[in-house]
């Protein structure tokens, strides 16, 4: 029985962490798959969203859920400006230039946030109902983790439906698979890029806000967790919503379990596992499926 | 009876449920000038890919001079004497024309692994590359980057790179496609001037070119060999005229 509770709490913890990874990374995966753009500034958009969400709560007293929506909208809007004016110029450039450009953006974001807001960590003040523990019947668990899991499931279902059932979703899938074909079918690829980019950045913003409880929120955020987001995308496969979902859960749970049982191994195992996974399936674990 | 250079036995390749090439029995003789024709999607390029090793067959064998080379990767087949060009240019676009050909020649003569001598000191390689370029009337572009050349000139470079490999079997995938007709004769002249020991297989849509060039023609339809014979036989075959040549006469 104790073992059962132990396993349950472990999986819950890992899944909750995985959900944050998923919410932030899914936009990265889709934009990278769709546009072939190595967007290392994705973490910067997550950070921007996180700041908008946390600061609007702390300074204007906006409640948690509206603040999340607000962060999504603001970040998506900002990202559109960037996409149209800057990113669009580099769609045909080599990977390297994209890396350079987006690292430049990350540096500028970090410096600007440090200058304008300060180097300190911003505290997310959760509503009372999301604090403490909740009784799940079989075990007590951290309310916020349960909330994150529920949110993550809603988001992945929504995205899945959106991808499978809507026109835009079909267009995105078609373009990920074969851009030239999609263009010849009359899909407005540029508009699709902008929309997807905005949406992906908005999702990153949500992730930044939702994850602030675990990951904190300070100017270095844009760089600190980038490797984790990239690992999730690489393992999940480019442009694959469900792939990224499974990869995020896998990495979240594995990371959690390894930390709990072999804390002395540090991050050794998670990097080692990622290497093995990528060598085994270079295109990502879930690259075979179409969404 | 001339010596058989390259042959295939029951060669087939499927992509999922789609059989792009199946049951192909084909033979290319030394010194042959052989054309492969057929409608779009007939599996011609897939067939070339199977011969050159870009793709692995799902069935059957490829035999070069009596040796089974089915499992041998592309780069090793080049060493065994098979070279090809591509339907869509695959060139080193950022490099000069001379560098493009130099790379091919130096690979062939075994110079390319040398890292301690300047490339410029291999006069033999440069000379050979320049002669090839002269043959294709490319020498005045030798110092220009491929990406700066008009498409027709790039097609010539495509051939020059393949010729730099001094192949025994040369597979040309629509060498004249996209080349202005004023220049396409340069390509054909160059191919025509090749040593008689080389077997050449050419995929071509332009029937004038095919009939002028080829001594033997294979017609491929739906991934299978539909007919084979001399140009005369092919031209005389009413079925082929109906199925294929007729379609193309107005293209």
């Amino acid at each position: 029985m104790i073992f059962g509770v132990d396993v349950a709490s472990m999986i819950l913890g890992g899944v909750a962490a995985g959900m944050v990874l998923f919410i932030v990374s899914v936009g990265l995966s889709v934009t990278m798959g769709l546009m072939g753009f190595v967007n290392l500034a994705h973490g910067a958009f997550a950070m921007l969203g996180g700041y908008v969400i946390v600061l609007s709560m702390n300074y204007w007293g906006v409640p948690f859920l509206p603040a999340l929506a607000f962060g999504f909208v603001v970040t998506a809007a900002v990202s559109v400006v960037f996409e149209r004016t800057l990113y669009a110029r580099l769609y045909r450039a080599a990977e390297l230039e994209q890396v350079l450009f987006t690292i430049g953006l990350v540096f500028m974001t970090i410096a600007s946030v440090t200058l304008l807001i300060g180097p300190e960590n911003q505290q997310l003040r959760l509503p009372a109902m999301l604090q403490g523990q909740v009784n799940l019947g079989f075990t007590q668990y951290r309310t916020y983790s349960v909330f994150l899991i529920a949110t993550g499931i809603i988001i992945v279902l929504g995205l899945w439906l959106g991808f499978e059932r809507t026109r835009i979703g079909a267009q995105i899938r078609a373009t990920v698979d074969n851009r030239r074909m999609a263009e010849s079918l009359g899909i407005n690829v540029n508009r699709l890029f902008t929309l997807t980019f905005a949406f992906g950045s908005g999702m990153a913003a949500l992730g930044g806000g939702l994850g602030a409880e675990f990951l904190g929120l300070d100017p270095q955020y844009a760089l600190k967790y980038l490797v984790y987001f990239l690992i999730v995308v690489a393992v999940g496969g480019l442009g694959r919503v469900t792939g990224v979902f499974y990869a995020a859960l896998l990495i979240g749970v594995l990371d959690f379990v390894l930390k709990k049982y072999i804390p002395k191994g540090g991050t050794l195992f998670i990097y080692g596992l990622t290497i093995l996974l990528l060598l085994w399936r270079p295109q990502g674990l879930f690259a075979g499926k179409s969404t | 009876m001339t010596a058989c250079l390259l042959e295939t036995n029951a060669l087939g390749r499927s992509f999922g449920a789609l059989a792009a090439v199946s049951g192909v029995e084909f033979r290319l003789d030394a010194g042959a000038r052989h054309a492969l024709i057929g409608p779009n999607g007939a599996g011609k390029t897939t067939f070339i890919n199977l011969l050159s090793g870009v793709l692995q067959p799902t069935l059957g064998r490829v035999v070069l001079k009596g040796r089974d080379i089915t499992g041998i990767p592309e780069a090793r087949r080049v060493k065994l004497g098979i070279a090809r060009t591509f339907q869509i240019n695959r060139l080193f676009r950022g490099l000069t024309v001379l560098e493009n050909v130099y790379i091919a020649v130096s690979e062939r003569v075994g110079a390319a692994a040398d890292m301690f001598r300047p490339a410029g000191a291999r006069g033999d390689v440069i000379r050979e590359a320049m002669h090839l370029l002269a043959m294709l009337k490319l020498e005045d572009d030798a110092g220009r980057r491929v990406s700066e050349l008009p498409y027709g000139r790039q097609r010539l470079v495509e051939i020059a790179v393949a010729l730099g490999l001094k192949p025994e079997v040369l597979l040309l995938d629509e060498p004249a496609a996209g080349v202005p007709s004023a220049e396409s004769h340069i390509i054909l002249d160059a191919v025509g001037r090749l040593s008689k020991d080389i077997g050449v297989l050419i995929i071509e849509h332009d029937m004038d070119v095919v009939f002028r060039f080829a001594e033997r023609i294979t017609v491929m339809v739906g991934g299978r060999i539909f007919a084979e014979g001399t140009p005369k036989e092919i031209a005389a075959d009413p079925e082929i005229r109906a199925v294929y040549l007729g379609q193309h006469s107005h293209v």
Partner: protein
Amino acid sequence: MKRIIGATASFLLAIGWAQAQEVKVGVVLPYTGVGAELAQQQDRGMELYLKMHADMIKPYKITLIKRDYKNPGGADAKIAVQELLTQDKVDILAGWNYSPNAIATAPLVTAGKKLAVISNAGTAHITNLSPYYVRVSFSMWHAGYALGDAAVKQLKAKTAVVGYTDFPPGKDMLASFKRAFEAAGGIVIDEIPMGSAGAVPDFTPFFQRVKDKKPDVFFVFVPGGDHTTAVIKTYNALSMREAGIKLIGPGDITQDNKLQAMGPGAIGLITMHHYNADLDNPENKRFVAAWKKEYGPDSTPDFMAVGGYDAMAAIVHVVKALNGKIDVDKALEVLKGWKYDSPRGPIMIDPQTRDIVMNEYLSEVVMKDGKLAQKPLGRIEAVKDPCKSLKIGPCAN
């Protein structure tokens, strides 16, 4: 004509005088990067001291030449220190936030023959690495050892789990706590490295492991700053207090400028440290009031700020004692045994080790006037770095 000559002469004299009065202090701190916030606290502490004591410092002029070394990598710090010494020709060095940088620059400081006042870096044996290092901040062993002892004797704990950030200060803290705790009769039943100092990890898995072990106290050491906040959050989210596990640690985990952000969840935390902003002594009252006036009512000084403040106090003491002519050997003479009433209470520089001797305070977080505050539980006076007293590892040399 004479008047002109006279004026020029007096002008030149004035310049000469002014030059003689200027003391250049090279400050090396991580002004950008992950440590930027920590650097800011120390920087503000230094500046505040100069501002509060402007009259006392006259006629000397202390110029701070600030250099960023960005990260704990060592190389940037070495370049910064080397150039401060050879190019800016500073008279005194100060700063060092990260221990690895202090370790890396030790040979330079020795070669440069300049007084170097450490305002934070806490790895115990650093002061052994160069004869010119003087530390006014702390050694990791100060709080760890004191708390290990107090945990058994005052908090009546028998078992403990130690969770630490996996970098040298964390390992120091583990060693010092464990040594004192077990010497006093307790048992450390588990030691958990909890991620690196670079990024705040999700502490849940580690804390879950602790919860399973059910120790009397859970001793945590993480770097001051964001790690701390995350620790408190996780402790509460997993209801570990309700499970009977006391969270204790050095004062890093209740760093003053983070305290209010932790919320009521922090109530009941027990820490051992040499400073908190609620210490009841006149120096501290003056210091905190001046700080809030200078940097805003929401800003609170913490032990790093005091480190910066006391570093400047030491430097000013040297400048005044040596009449602005800084010679490293004389400066060391002046500082060895120097006593001062710091906001953290009376401090002294140990003449043998050039390390600080100070009080350690056991405190508990309580709610007072709607704000979190630190209630004193006890005090251990004049604590010397136990690592050097006990001659442990590299501290022995």
